[in-house]
Structure formats: C-alpha cells, structure tokens
C-alpha cells in the first residue's frame, strides 16, 4: 500500500483505495461506480439489459469474475513478473469466465443462450481488468475481495436499474420468476425501449442522473 502505487482510477481523490473496507465499498458502489461514473465496460451493460432477469444474471456473473480474479491476482501479486502481468491477468480472468459460462450452460441453458457471447465478453470488460491492474496488484487479498464485491455490486445495481426501466417501458411489465409488476392496460408498450436505441437512451439518462446528483465535479474531461 505504498503511496507511490497510488490507485490509477482514484489517485486524484486522495487515494481512498489505500484505506480499508467501508471506504473501498463506497468507492465502488457510489462515488466511483464503474458504469455510471467511469463509463467503463458498457458493451455488455447495453446488450443484456433488455430484461431485468438477464441483467441480474449478468450482474452475478460479473460479481463472481471480479471477486475471483481480484482474489487470485492479489494472492499471486508478488509472484507475477511485471512484464507479463497483463497476460497473466487475462488468463486468470478468462478462467473464471469459463467457469461461470460452463455453470450456466449446465444448469441454465436457456439463460446461457439468451446472453449469447456476452458472458465470454466479460474477459475484455475493462472494469475487471482495471480492478486487477489498479487495485489487486497492490493490495492484500481481503481488501481486494472487498473491492471486487463493491465493484460487482456497483455494476450489478446499475445494470438492474437499466434492465428494470427497459423491461418496464418496453413490454409494459416486469417479470422476475413468479413476481410480476404490471403497468396495466392504459400503457401501450414502447417496443423501442427493448431495441438498441432504448439502451442508449436509458443509459445516457442514467449517467446524466448520476452526474447531477453527485454535483458534477469536473466531468468535462472524462473519457
């Protein structure tokens, strides 16, 4: 936790990552939410959020991969040669993605088909890689797990919000297992929300909302 290794993503804000538990948790879920604030890893966020259930499964997949890869990168952080660390991280992440993919295929075949290639694409999700690179490489395992959980939850919550909005306005009702939330007959479902443009619109509005609530501290030069 030496200072010269200040965290890449939050270095500008006094290195909150250097702290422990709660600070790390808050960082991942709210102040530095991977989706809404950093706008990373949006490919899968847009693609799988046409239904709430899909979004939740994707959130779980992400949580699992992020925690697993953070833990193992952190455990091995003193043994990975600096020069090949990227490929080592990718191999670790890909292992966890394969595990989850096989699990889905074995027990939830329908879901696996709906998610298509997007489970596999977690490998190239910048957030997982970014957390491994910026956090797990410099921190002990326990804190790294917390960081993984925080980012997983932050990502999952943002996904769930988008998924909920799109399914609700797109088909007029949200179905999750046995629970059904119906808007009633007065509402005419807007198919557009389920199609691609709806994803862009909802996500754009979500980002705007997060920025406004946080009070936009110099978002001008965001990537």
């Amino acid at each position, binding site marked *: 936790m030496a200072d010269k290794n200040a965290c890449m993503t939050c270095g500008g804000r006094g290195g909150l990552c250097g702290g422990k538990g709660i600070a790390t948790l808050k960082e991942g879920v709210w102040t530095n939410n991977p989706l809404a604030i950093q*706008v990373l890893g949006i490919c899968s966020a847009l693609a799988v959020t046409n239904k709430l259930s899909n979004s939740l499964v994707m959130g779980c997949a992400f949580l699992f991969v992020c925690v697993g890869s953070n833990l193992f990168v952190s455990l091995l952080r003193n043994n990975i040669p600096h020069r090949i660390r990227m490929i080592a991280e990718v191999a670790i992440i890909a292992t966890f993605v394969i595990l989850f993919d096989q699990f889905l295929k074995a027990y939830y075949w329908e879901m696996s088909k709906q998610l298509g290639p997007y489970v596999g694409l977690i490998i190239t999700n910048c957030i997982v890689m970014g957390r491994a690179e910026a956090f797990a490489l410099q921190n002990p395992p326990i804190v790294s797990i917390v960081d993984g959980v925080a980012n997983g939850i932050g990502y999952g919550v943002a996904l769930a919000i988008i998924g909920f909005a799109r399914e609700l306005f797109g088909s007029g009702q949200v179905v999750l297992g046995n629970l059904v939330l119906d808007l009633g007959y007065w509402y005419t479902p807007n198919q557009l929300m389920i199609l691609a443009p709806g994803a862009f619109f909802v996500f754009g509005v979500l980002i705007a909302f997060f920025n406004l609530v946080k009070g936009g501290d110099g978002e001008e030069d965001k990537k």
Partner: protein
Amino acid sequence: MNSFGYEIWLAMVTCFAAVFTQNILLTTFLGMCPFTSVSREVKTAAGLGGAVVFVMTCTTAINYWAYKLLIYLDLEFFRFILFIIIIAAFVQFVEMVIDRYSPKLYQSLGIFLPLITVNCAILGASLFMVIREYHFIQTIGYGFGAGLGWMLAILAMAGIRTRLNESRVPEGLRGPGITLIIAGLMALAFIGFTGVLS
C-alpha cells in the same frame, strides 16, 4: 464451381448485413469503450477504424481454423482463452511488422494497435462467428463487414462530436452522456435498414 459462387454470394450478403442491418456497434453494442473515448477527432477515428477493419478480418479468419482445431480436440470450452491469446499475439505481430517495414504507416496506425487488443468488438466478432456457424468464406465477409460497420459508426460519431463542440449541452449530459444519446439516435437510423435483407 456453382456452389463456390454461392458461397461468395453468401459472404457478400453477410458482409452487407454486418455493415448495415446488424451493425456491430449500434445493434450489438460491441466496442463501446473506444467508441466513447476516441471519437473526438475524425482523423484519429479513421486511423483506429482502419486498424479495426484489418485486425478483425484477419483474426476472425485465424480463429475460424483455431476453433476447428478445438472441436477436433473436444476442447470447445477453451475457446475464450485461445481467441484472446490469438488476438493479442496477432496484434503484437502486426505491430512489429509495420514498425520494421513501414515507419510511416506505423506513425499513423501503430499507436492504435495496442488499443485493439482490449476492444471487445474483436473478440465479439469471433464469438458471433462461432455462434452463428458461418462457413470460412462467409467468416471473412463477416469480419470485414463488421469492421467496416464499426468504422462507419465511429467516423460518423467523430464528425458529429466536432460539431457538438460549439453547442451548449445540458450540464449532466456533458461528456459520455450526450455521446450515448447521439449513439441512440444513430441506432434509430440504422434500424431503418432492417428488412432490406429478407
């Protein structure tokens, strides 16, 4: 010979579909990260787009045979790791070749190559190729078309964003927010192509 002609025809249709009706960026959302971050200037967007077209065409073709090998060995689940390693190795290789033989090209294209390894559109194209069970020639058509479609989208976006510099955007939407809204409008336009091929 006739069936070969049919294959070529199929590849062309797939290519057209990949550019317009199933644009990899606007309908399947792949490659969004560079799309939001590199689309500030038309020139850089064009450079990155060109690199993506080239790398995508080649890696889908290589991955096609790699996947055949995996099926032969009964190791399909291994494909994620194999694909990403092939992509990374290929990009590295191209970078070295360009650096050695054409410094001029390296100047304009080379800086974009490392970015491409983490572009999910490249891996995504390979995965779609597997899921949709394309034949080899069709795969080449698909890889080329998908890359071209991505380039088209990022070029258009760069053009729009240059104009956007002079307009006033609501506070919260500045930066990535407005980019996504514009992308949504573009996706809306591209939906108009649906039904061209049926």
